[in-house]
């Protein structure tokens, strides 16, 4: 079996974001770019599956839609252990555009299991995985918190509101993964970093597609009111404030 992990290039999640050009663009000054956290966990799980020969995983590849400036993030994925990478050379217009490009990658290079993170930590759309599956006309399982291979067949756990389910689905399919899929992201070894330099990144030109949405502007959340401190010996005062001032009790 072959696994593809779709990766997004996002600002480090501790970044205090700022915007420029009338709040139309992210101020990229001083930003550390990282693999989207859920994609990094997906890659980790894909490599764990490959580590066990009984699972019969031959290849773990990564795919990214973005300009050449994203290559350090792709190299990081290769250093962590991916065998090869695809980069579609285009600005990631919106989720629809990205999914359409990834679909072209998969049509030309078939995979059995395609991992997508449940969302990217920048646009929070939770969209690319489901869109990709629909473009390909294959099943998708969303909110996946575990995946293993039993007797050659993938078995997944998906979270539903108010519970969880164990499900199976025939390959090829898209697994849209969330927390739980792997405990900690795998860290690149020195050897991994060295070998990543020679691993292939195939650069593909984008297919003609138009985004369906466009960000007009960003805004920062309203400033929070200053905290009112209550005497720890008198928490009754807190309850009164919540009742009479904040009116939430």
């Amino acid at each position, binding site marked *: 079996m072959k696994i593809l992990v779709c990766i997004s290039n996002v600002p480090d999640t501790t970044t205090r974001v700022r915007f420029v050009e009338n709040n139309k663009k992210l101020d990229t000054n001083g930003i550390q770019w990282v693999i989207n956290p859920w994609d990094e966990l997906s890659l980790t799980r894909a490599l764990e599956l490959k580590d066990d020969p009984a699972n019969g995983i031959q290849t773990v590849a990564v795919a990214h839609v973005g300009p050449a400036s994203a290559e350090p993030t792709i190299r990081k994925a290769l250093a962590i252990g991916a065998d090869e990478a695809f980069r579609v050379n285009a600005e990631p217009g919106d989720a629809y555009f990205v999914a359409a490009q990834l679909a072209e990658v998969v049509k030309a290079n078939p995979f059995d299991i395609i991992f997508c993170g449940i969302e990217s930590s920048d*646009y929070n759309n*939770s969209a690319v995985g489901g869109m990709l599956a*629909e473009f390909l006309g294959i099943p*998708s399982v969303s909110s996946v918190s575990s995946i293993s291979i039993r007797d050659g067949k993938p078995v997944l756990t998906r979270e539903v509101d108010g519970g969880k389910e164990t499900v199976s689905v025939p390959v090829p399919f898209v697994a849209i993964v969330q927390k739980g899929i792997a405990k900690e992201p795998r860290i690149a070894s020195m050897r991994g970093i060295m070998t990543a330099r020679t691993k292939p990144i195939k650069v593909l030109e984008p297919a003609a597609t138009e985004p369906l949405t466009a960000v007009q502007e960003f*805004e920062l959340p309203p400033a929070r*009111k200053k905290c009112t401190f209550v005497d720890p010996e008198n928490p009754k005062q807190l309850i009164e404030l919540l009742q009479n001032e904040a009116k939430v009790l």
Partner: protein
Amino acid sequence: MAVLVYTENWDGSFKKLSFELVSYGAGLASMLGKPLVVLSIGNVASSELEKLGKYGARKILSLSDPALQVFDSQAYAEAIAQVATREQAEVIVLSNNNTGKAIAPRLSVKLKAGLGAGVSKLPLSTNPFVVYKRSFSGNAFAHVEIKTPVKIITLAQNSFGLVENPGAPSIETISVPVDPALVKTTVTEAQKQTGKLLLTDAEIVVSGGRGMKSPDNWGPLVELAELLGGATACSRPVSDEGWRPHEEHTGQTGKIIAPNLYIAVGISGATQHLAGVSSSKVIVAINTDKDAPIFEAAQYGIVGDAMKVLPKLVEAVKEIKHK
């Protein structure tokens, strides 16, 4: 033309998020001057469907089909797309919960309809159609224009609230052809937390972090949540340690919640934690460290040891409840 809302049910019963979706759909329909159509899938009794009328539903379509008994996103997207076409839906609204996240993107490709995901307000304008949504994991909000004639919105839970607009709805049982071959998902085991308040639905959440010191200290926190009619949650280190179940983890990689009141006990307030709770209307922090970042997000704070403060809070709530 219409606004179509898909409301989910749990074994035939609606939850708060279903009513919130209908409230939002009614608000959007009146903004656009278009009728609201509410779609329910599965076996739901008419007495339950009628409850949606309280929040502005006047036309309800009830669809049940053997192919839709198991949740398969491909089959559900196909069914909803057919209903949307039949009703000439201009905007389709789903929840931004697990189900909505599974269906909406597929629907977007199927109908070539732009998706605004995690929307927390009515559109900022309808021409152009601009939605307001969470971005950068709660560190910013984006105004996103949806450029297609048909639009899809997923509504962030607890962001809009319930708006009553009572009336008696018409209920029509419909069927659409759903190819059973589309259903590829097999569920081999299901674990349900029946009767439990959904964390994402809860209006009050009491949440514990490492400051709780041990899994054995949770008693007063759970008691406080119960007294307030709320749910319990926790920070990532607590769920990673196995002190509390993973379903309770709120934060960037856990659940994103927006209750009216979030009480953070012994949680320092790392950026990743705040990403999951920053949309709460009021945050209360209890922490021994007066410089903890949680106090920057909190409206009310108590600097003190959770083990000492919690029992006193429980007593205070009991006292007020007695009055």
